């Protein structure tokens, strides 16, 4: 009797567990790795970059087909455009493996909040992808460029963004969740890394782009784009973007170049940088103190400075601090005067410091921000010199 029960139970379980209601087999999925959104007239144009699994696979011989395919479609809303894409694509797009979203410059100038609602609301879009903006190109063109080494261009976009954030500092990898948080915070401005196409755009789409030693068309990150509200305001230069990374505590490693006391330059490699932003209110007026603490090593010596002397190290520290300070203050000025957007979260720092006072000035923050007093304090310590003490090539003068 017990055995009969077991058998019945197993039979029932097999019926109940062996299938889902809304199952999708793997060969019904078109795995989208990158999504590009452009605005053309009043419609949205969507570009999806879909992986061709056979081409990526290690085992099968690679034919001449491209590793990724891109489809475009237009619609009044993004959701419509995506569903319309099924008229072109062989399978229904599956967005759970999305790596990067590229927003076109024209869309960014009009406002990105509307475009992002679907991405945040739909359950298929996970929240682990980054958002970038295309500069002087449409998202469509960016996603049509084949990249060397990385078969899937979306991976290149993502990796390059990450690595340059860690090693150079002129880009910031902005996760969609972070972006939405910033956009919903009315007192803060958003920053998105911008990507450009170098070379003839028409050549990038060809497989021949990656068949040469020197790739004619490359995708390069150009700096940070400043957003006021959800509209694109302007692009910052590389050094300004680096300063912004300093202020946002996003620098992990980068280099600084300083001038030697005699002619020549010296480059230092920054190994650790922490930035603390403190807000305070003095007589009801808001004030921000930024403390940047930098640890570095000497990286490249192109002059005849004598590094074995203590005062040389002091000089290096001082000069680097000066350099960072100058650039940071110049960038601050530009952001405050020209763009008038709080991209650093100074408002949040003031909120954390003194909520009551903050409540009073919260609504006028956009008009207070340009005149906000920001004091920048940079402290630099040099730890090491690399594996050489004094440069073998530029010998210091005998003193």
């Amino acid at each position, binding site marked *: 009797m017990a055995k009969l029960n077991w058998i019945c139970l197993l039979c029932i379980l097999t019926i109940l567990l062996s299938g*889902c*209601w*809304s199952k999708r087999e793997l060969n019904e999925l078109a795995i989208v790795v990158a999504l590009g959104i452009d605005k053309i007239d009043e419609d949205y144009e969507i570009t999806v970059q879909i992986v061709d699994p056979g081409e990526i696979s290690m085992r099968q011989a690679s034919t001449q087909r491209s590793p990724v395919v891109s489809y475009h479609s237009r619609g009044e809303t993004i959701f419509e455009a995506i569903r319309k894409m099924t008229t072109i694509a062989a399978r229904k797009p599956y967005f759970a493996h999305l790596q990067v979203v590229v927003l076109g410059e024209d869309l960014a100038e009009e406002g990105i909040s509307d475009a992002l609602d679907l991405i945040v609301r739909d*359950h298929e879009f996970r*929240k*682990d992808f980054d958002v970038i903006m295309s500069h002087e190109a449409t998202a469509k063109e960016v996603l049509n460029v084949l990249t060397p080494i990385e078969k899937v261009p979306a991976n290149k976009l993502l990796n390059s963004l990450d690595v340059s954030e860690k090693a150079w500092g002129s880009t910031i990898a902005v996760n969609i*969740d972070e972006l939405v948080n910033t956009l919903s915070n009315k007192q803060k401005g958003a920053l998105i890394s911008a990507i450009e196409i170098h070379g003839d755009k028409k050549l990038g789409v060809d497989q021949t782009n990656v068949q040469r030693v020197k790739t004619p068309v490359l995708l390069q990150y150009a700096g940070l784009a400043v957003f006021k509200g959800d509209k694109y305001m302007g692009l910052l230069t590389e050094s300004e973007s680096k300063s912004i990374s300093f202020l946002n505590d996003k620098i992990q490693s980068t280099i600084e170049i300083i001038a030697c006391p005699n002619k020549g330059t010296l480059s230092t490699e920054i190994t650790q940088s922490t930035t603390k932003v403190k807000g305070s209110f003095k007589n009801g007026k808001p004030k921000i103190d930024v403390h940047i603490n930098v640890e570095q090593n000497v990286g490249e010596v192109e002059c005849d400075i004598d590094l074995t002397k203590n005062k040389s190290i002091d000089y290096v520290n001082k000069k680097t601090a000066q350099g960072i300070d100058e650039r940071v203050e110049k960038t601050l000025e530009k952001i405050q005067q020209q763009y008038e957007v709080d991209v650093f979260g100074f408002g949040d720092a003031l909120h*954390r410091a003194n*909520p009551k006072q903050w409540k009073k000035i919260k609504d006028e923050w956009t008009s207070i921000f340009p005149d906000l007093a920001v004091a920048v304090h940079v402290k630099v310590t040099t730890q090491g010199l690399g594996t050489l003490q004094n440069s073998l090539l530029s010998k210091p003068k005998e003193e």
Partner: protein
Amino acid sequence: MEKEIISSRQFTIVTFLYSIGTAILIIPSSITGAAKQDAWIAASIGVLLSLLLVKLFLTLANQTPSLNFIEANEKILGRFFGKITAICFLIMTFLSAGELLYFIGIFMKTEVMPETPTLAFALLFSIIIMYAAYLGIETFARSAEILFPMFIFIFIFFIISISPQITFENIQPLLEATKTSMLYSITRFMSIFSFPLLVLLMLYPASVNVQQAAQKGLYIGTILGGVVLITLIVLSILVLGPENTAARTFPSYALAQRISIGNFLQRIEIIMAFMWISSIYIRTFMYFYTTVVGLAQILKIKDHRPLILPMGIIVIGLSQIVHPDIVHSTNYNNEIWPIFSFIFTILLPILLLIVAVIRNRKSKAQNNETPQQETKNDNQKV
């Protein structure tokens, strides 16, 4: 039907998982909406106040040892009024069982399988509940004992995996919320966390073997459940931020989606969902079991088991009509449920307690008179 007994450890585990219930899924969103980044303070205060509630429930239960809550109603308030209050209480638990069945359906539908009708989930889940009710409390308590270590293990894993993503600034500034918003938050928190603990009086004291240990068990279970919820709320605020937590329908699920260790251990949120399904199962079972057993006891039917099947069928139907959409559910849980549950889980026990105490005093007074008369007679005889 013989009396079923569960041990005090099983009782503690059931209390723990029961108090977490659906709170783990919906509480972070509703209380962060009101109290913003101080939601965890509201939750902590709520847990402390819940201990007072537990004291109230225990005092009431001790007035009628060996009777569960439904029988106590009739004993204390008399046959007519007791039946009425018991029926109202059962309406509350019955509707709650339907609500929870709806809830598991909508959770699965929103986050995991949006094209599946909620009826499918309700059907599958209710089969489990009905079979558990058929097998009785002892089996149920054992199943809770089995689920407990898995729950704890997944919970600890969850906390450890999500901790690297904490940004402490998200919880500052402290104590910014106004008193009104704190009051709302605390009330909503307690209405889902601790008011329903009254239903556990169906188990205690009638079915527990060691009274003292079970009392401690009720306290410990409540505190542990509170700790889990507070931890989850704190983590939600620290990792997602207060606005994001308040905006999401299921913040804990969004939190679990964030787990990414070494770019390798990712997309495991469905394993976290195991936690939530377990706690919802415990709570749904308690509501359903209470309704069935209570109905049988009010109508003086000896065996409650035949009633399980038709009640289960009604509950499935109930789950489909009880909320037409999630907005209705959120509004109901935020606005109406605190008041509705307050009346039947706070005012009713207080009423019962007062009446019971008065009755006990009266009967003590009567008992005091009769022995004195007897001793007088004895003295006279001698």
